């Protein structure tokens, strides 16, 4: 474990693309929060639909910031794709194996990286929410809904492991990034064409729903109840189980591909 962490650190500590993408993420997340706050102030009618409270107020800030940050996960997912495809393009993954690394260690190394990146993103998002909340919130009830940060952590692991699978499948950096980005709307379109119920089980949908639109369920529940507008939603435990299955599947499939593939 220590060896794998040391190896990933040695490989990535001077990889500027990762630093730049993470820096952009660090800037856009709070900026987006302020923009949303400003937007709701300018559009009180929308605020009334989505939230009845100030987005910066505890505990609402947790749902706002995790939901907002989830959009920018794509930046960090791109870094996962870039790092993995570079490893293939530069033949460094091949060289690592020649030098004695096993394919299992290669996968484990990427898993460790995904966990660290997810932890860093979650920690930053949490700190952002905490600081913004402490500055802007009218109350100090920050314990409530704090679990959303854990769900965000699982969500990022899900996105990044999916990005890793894409990178291993496609191999070429530019094509892998484009197909990964295109997959998001494709999944939404295909899922909705097949059926709304089935769509709830699609991987990115499962990950996305871990940090849902703030007050989405409240808005749905506040609507008129009849058989026609009953919306099928997975429970949190179902979402978590499915997310876990998808994460394991992503790494298992990549291991299977790497094990069979000539490098």
């Amino acid at each position: 474990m220590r060896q794998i962490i040391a190896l990933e650190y040695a490989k990535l500590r001077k990889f500027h693309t990762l630093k730049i993408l993470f820096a952009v993420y660090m800037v856009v997340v709070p900026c987006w929060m302020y923009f949303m706050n400003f937007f709701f102030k300018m559009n009180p009618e929308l605020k009334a639909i989505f939230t009845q409270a100030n987005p910066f107020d505890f505990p609402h800030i947790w749902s706002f910031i995790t939901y907002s940050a989830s959009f920018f996960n794509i930046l960090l997912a791109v870094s996962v794709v870039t790092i993995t495809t570079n490893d293939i393009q530069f033949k460094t993954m091949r060289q690592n194996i020649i030098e004695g690394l096993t394919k299992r260690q290669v996968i484990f190394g990427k898993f460790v990286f995904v966990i660290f990146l997810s932890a860093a993103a979650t920690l930053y998002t949490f700190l952002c929410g905490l600081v913004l909340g402490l500055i802007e919130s009218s109350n100090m009830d920050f314990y409530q809904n704090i679990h959303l940060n854990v769900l965000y952590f699982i969500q990022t692991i899900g996105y990044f492991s999916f990005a890793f699978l894409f990178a291993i499948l496609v191999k070429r950096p530019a094509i892998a990034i484009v197909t990964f980005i295109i997959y998001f709307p494709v999944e939404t379109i295909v899922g909705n064409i097949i059926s709304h119920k089935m769509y709830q089980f699609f991987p990115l949908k499962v990950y996305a729903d871990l940090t849902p639109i703030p007050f989405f369920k409240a808005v749905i529940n506040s609507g008129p109840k009849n058989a026609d507008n009953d919306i099928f939603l997975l429970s949190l435990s179902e979402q978590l189980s499915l997310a876990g299955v998808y994460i394991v599947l992503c790494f298992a499939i990549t291991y299977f591909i790497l094990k069979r593939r000539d490098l």
Partner: protein
Amino acid sequence: MSEIVLQVDNLSKKYKKVEAVKGVSFDIRKGNVYGLLGPNGSGKTTTLAMLMGILHPTQGSFSWFGNGQEDRNRLRIGCLLETPNFYPYLNAYDNLRVTATIKNMPNPKARIEEVLEYVDLKERGKRTFRTYSLGMKQRLAVAAALLSDPEVLVLDEPTNGLDPEGIAEMRELILKIGSEGKTIILASHILDEVQKICSHVVMLKQGEMVYNGSMTDLLLQRKSYKLMADEPQKLISVLRGLPQVRILSEEPDSLMVELDEQLTGSDLNRLVAEQGVYLSELHAYQKSLETIFLERMKL
């Protein structure tokens, strides 16, 4: 006989319609320098890639250090396969640190300095890999292969991209490593270099092994002789009647011949004398590895 470090048994690799390696079998013994020879596309790199765990053999097996194909075997091997592959955004020190981490080296700093000094890259070690010339990249790859002081060194075209001075240095380096008792497997096109360095040869042609044995045996097997006699025409007709002798060239005053592996120069002298032809000159010529190689590839 020294111990076997690598046993290759009927190793084959097939890509859709092309069979790159066809049932190759050989042993590599400890402390020897082996030359893996063959023209482009003969299967040298494919064979080495299978032995280094990055290609799956279609058939056959191999065993490093008597441990089969275990991944941990590769920790005991230093390898430069085809082109040097490093992280372009890292400098030489950082790239070697990656290798050292894979090789489980606890305090690699001093050793990294040492190998960079060894390949004359210490001064430029702080520059990123992407700024290196091909020769510098090649030298860094050799440094990486040597880093963990491996028991076996696998070098695939290590002089690629090196200037004549670099080639000479690399040859000295390989000889030096070989003299330290390390086992080396060297794939190279530069046959003069292989002849000077290697004690054993494995020769491949279109994926098939055409020779496996010691360099001395290979060179001795293929001696040629320059013959002169008072009656050259009679000598020619006598030689044509000897199935163990092959005439290579006929000059106005001399002949170049090649003998069967079992026949010596004195045997030849005796055979022609029995036919009433007396040689005025008989010179043995040692063929170069290059000549032997080219002959074998034409067969």
